[in-house]
């Protein structure tokens, strides 16, 4: 079971069990989606898996309208990067509707996110921070096959707009034996690996870089405690603070751009609420503050890697 199949299966499950669910997006129908995340779904649910024109703004508007009428639409953006065209409907219409009218908007927008080799500046972006800044939106960033499955199901069940940031690099790279029977609820972070020396907070594909670094440091007798945020809005501050209370040190790792964003928010919370728990200054690692490069070699050093995480962790432990 790959991360991608988990997303497909979650949608299958949702279509099968909830008549309010339908999927709308470019090429999601007969073709099964650019990444095959809706493969065979149109055959089984012909009126509920629908091809959209290349109109991201209208696609999201359509979903909002359908939600008002009691449906639970899933919108697939072909790439997260193209959601910038539907931006206004997402942040201003979907995000503000419940607060303005008391009518909830249960839509899920799937954003195939993050970098892959050779994808370049406009097929690689991680936009979780952009959407998390606006009120009224829930932002999920599943890092495991199990979460890809259970969180997508939860996203659709949630009564509010959810931006579901699924990572394209994990689509095929990540596999699991079976799908989960139980899972943490949205809004709860997970201690992906316990450790006593340093808390590393991360999410999405970066979890695996962090785990790789943790594994390597383990052989040096250094124990990282790794926290997978799972949702970046809301952020589960309690789990983070509890970990920092144990380790006294904080490193935040994210694939998105450095200015603002998840890392800044996590560091700010820990600095405010867990100041006296910290034995050393908190540290952040992000991608470079440039567009995401096309060349595989450039790409591989643009974003954080196990290697750069390892170096940062060592440095932080030296203080």
């Amino acid at each position, binding site marked *: 079971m790959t991360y991608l199949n988990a997303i497909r299966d979650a949608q299958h499950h949702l279509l099968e069990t909830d008549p309010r669910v339908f999927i709308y997006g470019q090429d999601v129908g007969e073709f099964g989606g650019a990444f095959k995340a809706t493969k065979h779904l149109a055959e089984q649910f012909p009126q509920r898996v629908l091809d*959209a024109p290349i109109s991201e703004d*209208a696609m999201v*508007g*359509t979903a909002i309208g359908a939600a*008002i*009428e009691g449906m639970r639409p899933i919108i697939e953006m072909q790439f997260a990067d193209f959601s910038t065209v539907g931006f206004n409907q997402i942040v201003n*219409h979907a995000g503000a509707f419940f607060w303005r009218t008391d009518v909830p908007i249960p839509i899920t927008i799937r954003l195939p996110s993050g970098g892959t080799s050779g994808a370049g500046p406009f097929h690689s972006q991680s936009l979780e921070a952009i959407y998390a800044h606006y009120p009224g939106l829930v932002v999920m960033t599943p890092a495991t096959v199990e979460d890809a499955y259970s969180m997508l199901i939860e996203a659709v069940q949630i009564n509010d707009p959810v931006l579901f940031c699924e990572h394209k690099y994990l689509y095929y790279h990540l596999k699991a034996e079976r799908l989960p029977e139980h899972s943490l609820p*949205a809004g709860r972070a997970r201690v992906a690996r316990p450790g006593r020396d340093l808390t590393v907070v991360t999410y999405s594909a970066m979890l695996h870089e962090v785990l790789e670094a943790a594994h390597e440091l383990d052989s040096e007798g250094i124990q990282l405690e790794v926290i997978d945020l799972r949702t970046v809005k809301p952020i589960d501050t309690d789990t983070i603070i509890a970990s920092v209370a144990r380790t006294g040190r904080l490193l935040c790792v994210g694939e998105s751009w450095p200015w603002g964003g998840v890392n800044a928010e996590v560091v700010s919370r820990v600095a405010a609420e867990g100041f006296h728990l910290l034995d050393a200054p908190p540290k952040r690692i992000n991608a470079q503050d440039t567009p995401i490069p096309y060349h595989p070699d450039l790409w591989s050093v643009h974003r954080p890697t196990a290697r750069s995480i390892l170096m940062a962790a060592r440095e932080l432990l030296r203080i």
Partner: protein
Amino acid sequence: MGSREALEETTAAGGKTIDPLLQAYRWMLTARLLDEKLATLYRAGRIHGGVFMGKGQEALSVALGQGLQVTDIYAPLIRDGAGRLAFGETIHDALRNCLGSPQGPMRARDGNVHRGRPRQGYLPMLSHLGAMISVVGGMLMARRIQGKPVGVGATCLGDGGTSTGAFHEAINLAAVERLPLVLVIANNRYAYSTPTEKQFACHSLTDKAIGYGVDSHSVDGTDLMACRNTIFEAIDQARRGHGPQLVVADLLRLCGHGEHDDAPYIKDQLKASPLGRDCLEVAADQLLGERVATKNQIETIRQEIVESIETAVAEVSRESLPCLTHYDWCSLSTRRLADGVS
């Protein structure tokens, strides 16, 4: 499910049936007088932000509100006071939204023309022009998927709004899906201060319909009877499965963009042209011509309206202010997922 017209006949005050044309006129006049009242309240500092009026657009607006059924969908725009009343909005709700009453439809959170009751198929506009069209489309698509009676979805746009990408994407999508959407464009010659020649270069806005493969209708927006005929026809076509209907009405904005704007840019020549006719006067003449009402009756109606507006202002003014202590700053319906809210 009866049309609003039928409804009116049975529900008119005192059980008396009231002629639909006269009812239209009553809503138009109510909208006009309510706008004037709002302008006064704005100048008196009782309304903050802005007041946007429908002067000159009442005939067009009321026709759409009146042509829809209660189960239809309606997403009006800035200058649709008359249509809102016809679709069922009360004077109280309009005032509440402008005066910021927590009892208003938007509970003082959003204001002025941004009001609606989505559960009743009546949508509050987003400021971003063009944004409502796809939402109405989505409601229609949902009903179709659900296998429910779909009804008609109607929404409005200005000449300026046709330049937005949102308009294009939404009407194109509606055309592809052949949705029963009625899109009424009020070509009132200006978008704020910008004249139509800086907004589009087609001969007539109805030409846009050809580019989308949808039906179009054009109408003199100053003429109530013409508006009713044309818009009822468009609604009917949509209801009978002919896909989206684009209605383009020619008229002139007879006021500033908002109450703060005295609109020096509106050309005298346009004001003096047939476009510059006041649709309210045209409608009154039609009432008299059709012998639906007498001058006296119209005057009585005016007085009744003035009175009901004054009463409503007095009542709404007594409604409570938002309570600031323990105010609910939660933007999600799922409270446990609200970040930093307890």
